[in-house]
């Protein structure tokens, strides 16, 4: 299934709802646009909703790690929510769980960053 992402901006928080398969092909297509959007809108935090992400490999990990490093420079954070079992396994394997915040739902993730509702 092709990859799509829906973006919503709430103050300095970028909410990304990812859908489909996040592989090398997909990351190459969205990376530039994502970086541009983050700079234009002066984004400090990202919430990744992965509820509908069916597949991800190490290219997806690379994309997330890249954005995380960028946010870190601004003392921002990355919050992951609604993560599926297979994607969770990849996170555990790569150690991403140790640096990113995980919340069960989108509402809780937005609440953590003070932009819920």
């Amino acid at each position: 299934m092709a990859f799509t992402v829906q973006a919503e901006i709430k103050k300095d928080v970028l909410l990304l709802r990812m859908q489909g398969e996040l592989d090398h092909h997909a990351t190459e297509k969205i990376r530039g646009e994502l970086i541009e959007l983050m700079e234009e809108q002066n984004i400090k935090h990202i919430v990744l909703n992965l509820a509908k992400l069916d597949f991800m490999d190490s290219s997806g990990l690379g994309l997330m790690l890249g954005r995380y490093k960028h946010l870190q420079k601004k003392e921002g954070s990355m919050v992951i929510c609604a993560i599926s079992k297979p994607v969770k396994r990849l996170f555990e394997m790569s150690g991403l769980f140790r640096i990113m915040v995980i919340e069960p739902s989108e509402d809780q993730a937005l609440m953590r960053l003070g932009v819920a509702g």
Partner: protein
Amino acid sequence: MNNHAAFKFRSISDNEAFARMVVASFVASYDPTIGELTDLKTVVSEAVTNAIIHGYEGRDDQWVYMTLTMEDNVLSIEVKDEGLGMSNIEEARQPLFTTKPEMERSGMGFTIMEHFMDSVDVSSVHSQGTTIRMSKHLASVQAGCH
């Protein structure tokens, strides 16, 4: 039931999804678990991505070869390119090692392959290419059932 399939496809990134679909279709008749299917799709994705990014450095007019063999409950996957080859296989297999940090490669490809498969064998010859051979025993496949 033993089975064997071999084919080649162009080194374009669209074919990463194609290769994942192929492995999923190949094992479908053996009733794999969802977990096994995800594992197989992930390792094929990693190996094919390696061939495209590292073997051919993004050149899109080359061939990636994939062979699938099912024999006595064991699925073997071979992914081969005729690209640059790797200078140091041991280094490449280390977690988080990457030659392309500027491309935001995570360096987790081989770690994922090793984690999801029973065995991973890599052979590479400078300027001639790289071959990754992996195998996995599928628990769901019962001997003599097919």
